Structure formats: structure tokens, C-alpha cells
């Protein structure tokens, strides 16, 4: 039973990890904490649904179309809503992302009401048995897809020139602009990229959780918890935090009480942050007075 719980914890945790990673990447590259990221995830899942079930495209095409739409939506949001106010107080920018989330959720609810939509599985093969563990193909796809995204991001930031440019643009925007980096352009590109990631995550998860307008909201808090848990703004910490929260939920849900499955993550966060305010991988920040 333990192995099964670990397996399902990892599946759940890798979803949290990807969403936390997307938020961390955006925070690291633009300094914005995106409270509407759960809605991007939801919008990605709905876009795939619309393209594949309503329009009737083949799955791969629908998936690509959904990612493309979300990338455009992300870039448009940055250009139209975030860029004009990005120099204001942080809380105003944060509120703008909340408003975005509201808007996307409202649009989804307006067109698809309160009903829960079903999304057929991406691959239709019977579950796989590994010893005593049962894994569906969808589970494996989620883990593989999420881990591929994680690895791709680490390589991007650590190894590519573009990744380094992005880090420069976020750390010293003025200096980066002076050496000829198009900082606003980079920010817009990053919004597009993270929206695309959200669409991929939404596509992977939709067949398991099904589709409803509020599907992003709770995922957002879990992801937010994951990134804070791991150390805010730390890429590895976001992934580790996501996996640990997924595992902790499953184990606490089985060994302590099923009622705890919804809340265990929050308990962990409160305790960890009171003891370690910078998260498990975070460094202590010195404040300049």
C-alpha cells in the first residue's frame, strides 16, 4: 500500500511541481507573482477541450492549438494589462493577476456553465502493474510530461544564452536594458512561455480531474504553497516542494485521516514557514536598510 501511495503522491505532486515551476519562472524572470496562474491552467484545459471535442480536431492538433492560444493570451495579458502598471506597488500588479483569473474563470463559466465536462483520456491503454502498484497510462504521462518540462527549464536557465539573458533582465533590468537587452520584450516572451506550460499541464491533468471553471483555484494555492515551501523563487525548491506536498497529502490521507487530504499541505506550510521563514531550500535574505 505504501508504494501505491507514494506513486499516486508523485503523480499529484508532479502537477503541483509544474504549476509551481511556472509561477517561479515568471517570478524569477519578471518579478511578478502570478495569482491568476491557476486560471491559465484551467484555460489551457478548456482550450484543448474546445478544439478536440467541440471543433473536432485531432488530439495532437488540438493540443498544439491550445498551447498556441495560451501563449498568445499570456503575451497579450502582459502587454495590455501588466506592462502599464508594472512600476506601481507590487500589490497592484498582484491584484491585476487576480483580476485576470476572475476574467478567465468568468468566461469559462459564462460559456460552459456550472456543469463538469468530461475529457477522454489521451492514450487508451489498460493500467500497468508494477509489483503491487497500479499506474494508469495517464499517470505515467503526467509524470513524464511534468518531469520533461522541469528538466527543460533547468537546462534553459542554466545552459542557454537566452536563459542567462533572462536572468540578467530580471536581476538588474536597468543594466540589462543598457547593454541592449529588450527587457519588456523578454517579459512578454516569458508570460507567453509560462502560459504555454500551464496549457500543457492543463491538458495532462484534464482527463483525470475533468473540467470545471474553478479547477485552477485550489491548484494555485497548492502550487503557491509548494513554491513557498521550497523557498520562494528557487526553481529546484518549487519542484521539490510540489513533490513533497503531493506525497504528504497522500500519506497523511491514508495513515491519519482521509479528511486530512485537503488540508495537510496547509498545515505543513504553516508549521514549516513559522520555523523556517525562507523555506527548505531558501537562503536567508539580508535586508538593506
Amino acid at each position: 500500500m505504501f508504494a501505491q501511495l507514494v506513486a499516486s503522491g508523485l503523480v499529484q505532486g508532479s502537477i503541483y511541481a509544474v504549476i509551481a515551476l511556472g509561477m517561479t519562472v515568471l517570478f524569477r524572470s519578471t518579478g511578478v507573482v502570478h495569482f491568476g496562474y491557476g486560471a491559465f491552467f484551467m484555460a489551457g484545459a478548456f482550450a484543448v477541450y474546445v478544439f478536440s471535442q467541440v471543433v473536432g480536431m485531432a488530439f495532437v492538433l488540438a493540443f498544439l492549438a491550445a498551447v498556441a492560444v495560451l501563449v498568445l493570451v499570456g503575451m497579450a495579458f502582459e502587454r495590455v494589462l501588466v506592462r502599464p502598471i508594472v512600476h506601481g506597488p507590487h500589490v497592484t500588479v498582484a491584484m491585476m493577476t487576480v483580476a485576470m483569473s476572475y476574467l478567465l474563470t468568468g468566461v469559462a463559466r459564462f460559456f460552459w456553465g456550472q456543469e463538469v465536462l468530461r475529457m477522454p483520456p489521451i492514450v487508451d491503454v489498460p493500467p500497468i502493474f508494477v509489483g503491487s502498484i497500479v499506474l494508469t497510462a495517464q499517470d505515467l504521462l503526467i509524470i513524464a510530461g511534468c518531469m520533461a518540462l522541469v528538466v527543460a527549464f533547468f537546462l534553459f536557465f542554466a545552459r542557454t544564452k537566452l536563459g542567462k539573458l533572462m536572468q540578467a533582465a530580471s536581476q538588474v533590468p536597468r543594466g540589462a536594458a543598457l547593454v541592449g537587452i529588450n527587457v519588456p520584450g523578454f517579459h512578454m516572451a516569458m508570460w507567453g512561455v509560462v502560459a504555454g506550460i500551464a496549457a500543457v499541464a492543463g491538458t495532462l491533468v484534464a482527463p483525470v480531474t475533468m473540467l470545471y471553471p474553478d479547477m485552477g483555484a485550489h491548484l494555485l494555492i497548492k502550487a503557491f504553497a509548494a513554491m513557498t515551501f521550497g523557498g520562494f523563487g528557487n526553481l529546484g525548491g518549487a519542484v521539490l516542494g510540489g513533490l513533497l506536498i503531493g506525497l504528504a497529502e497522500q500519506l497523511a490521507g491514508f495513515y491519519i485521516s482521509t479528511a486530512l487530504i485537503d488540508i495537510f499541505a496547509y498545515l505543513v506550510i504553516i508549521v514549516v514557514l513559522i520555523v523556517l521563514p525562507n523555506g527548505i531550500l531558501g537562503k536567508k535574505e539580508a535586508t538593506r536598510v
Partner: protein
Amino acid sequence: MSDISSPTSRTGTWTRASGDMPRAVLVLAALVAALAPLGLNEYWRFVASMMLIYTLVTLGFNILLGYLGQLAFANVAFFGVGAYAATIAMNGGLNFIPGILVGGIGGGIAGFLVGIPALRIRNYQLAIVTLATGELLRWLYIHGGSITQGSSGLEVPPMTLAGLQITTEIGKYWVFLAFTILCLAVTRNLLRSSVGRAIVSVRESEAISLGLGMHAAGFRILAFVWSGALVGVAGGMYACLLGRITPESFGLTQLLVHFSMVMVGGLGSFVGSIFGALLLTAIPETLRNFPGLEEIVFSLLLILVLRFVPEGIGGFLGARISGLRDRFFGGKP
């Protein structure tokens, strides 16, 4: 990375209270507030009561977000604690007036408990801890057994005054108006006293406040307690108005509404908190029958305010009408 130590801090000069609102205007405003609902139907009188409740909720939230400048999102936790504490007290036989005050005390205690970790945790870490606190409490209401009656929630006994049951919406409204005016008056005086100035100075620079010999931690805790108490009173009123409270009333959606009211009203603006609450209570009510449309209109309004009037209604009006100017509200953000 840019400075996130004080998400709401503003540079610019502090505006002196160049002209206080004349007392006659305040009396007139109170009279209008008392008499205007007579011209409304029952449903809109109910909405008017909601406006009063949200006024206190927004003001309480604004003390933490705007005046103290902390990303503390435990507002819905204070609201829920206030509602549950008041309801449990009233079910225990207390009259609604002390009952609502019990809500305020409960909210204040919740504020104190959240304020202590907030001395150590700041910024986004504080945001997630306070969000988690709200969700944790909602979970407790669902799993609280006979005390909270789970998802079906608690029945609230009817309001009685001097042996008479208050059944009409206008009667409830007048009672709530009395509570609201009292809370507004006390809060306004508190914010304009040395305590309010100290809270704002902690927002602007904790180091300087400490250097001046202020007990910064004490003022932080005080702001949390006062915020919790105001929102707790609102929670007690909310329970009395609805007659039944359920855990789902105290979730994330509720928090987003509170947050939006503060932002539309203007961070750190007293009058803005009132206007934000009035506006954002009225608009969704007119669209309640169209699923999704409510959220769309709400979000578009928020987007327009944030994009074009980021200082909020309070800041916008304060720049034009000297009597509405907030002493601690710096010019443009």
C-alpha cells in the same frame, strides 16, 4: 530583484489633513445612510445591510494591506471566526448585541494569533501562511462536529431587541448601521491618533520607527488585532443578517471579493474603503442571475480601476476634495 519589503509603500509627501470634513457633512451622511433605504424594496434593503457589513470588512482588511502594508490575507478567516463565534454565543442564549461583540472579540483574538507569526514572516511567505490559515479554518468548520455542524452550517437565532423580534429588513439595517457608525468612528479616531501614525510609520520604515523608539512589533500586533476585531464584528452582523452560516461562505471567493473592494477603494484610504464596499456590493447583485457575467463585469471593473486609477476611488477623490483626503495617503503610487 526589486524591493518587496513593503508592497504598498509609497513615496511622496504625506498630505496634511488640510480640511476635515465639517461635522455637518458627517451628520448629513449618517442621515442619508439611515433614511435612503426607506425608498428601496425589501431585497435592496437586504443589499444595503450587506453594504454595511462589507464596509467594515474592507476597512479592516485595509488596515493591514494599506496602513500596515502587509500582504496578510487572513481577512476571510477573521470574518468566519467572527460569524461562528457570534452564532455560537447567540445559540448559547446571548442577545444579538453582545453576540456581535463576541464576534468582534473572536476576530480580535484571531488577529492576535495571526499577528504573532507575522512578526517573523513577511511578504509572500506571509501571504501563503495567511491564505492557508483561512483554508484551515474553513476545514475546521466542516469537520467541527456538533460545534459547527459541518457543511450544513449553523442556524442563527432571530434578533430580538427589548423582547421584540426584529423581522423587517429595515429594522436589521438600522441596527447594523448603528454598529457600523460606531466602528467607523472609533477606527477613524484610532487611525488619526498617535497609534495610527505609528502604524503608518512602521509601514514606511520599520528601521526608522525602531530608531525613534517605537515598539514596532507592538503596533504590528495592534493593527492585526484591530483589523480582526472590525472584520469579526462584520462577521457577527453577517450571521445575523443571513440567519444561517455555512463553511462555503468563508472560502477563497469571499476573500477575492474583500481584496477587490480594498483595491478599488484605494489602499490606505478610509473613505475609499467605504466607496469600494458600496460599489462592489451593488454591482454583482444586479448581475446575480447570469452565471459568469458577474465575474466578467467584476473583473473588467477591477482591471479598469487598476489600469487607470491605481490609487483607487479614495485616492482619486482625495486628490480633488480636500475633506476626503486621507492624512496618510501619499500622492500617486
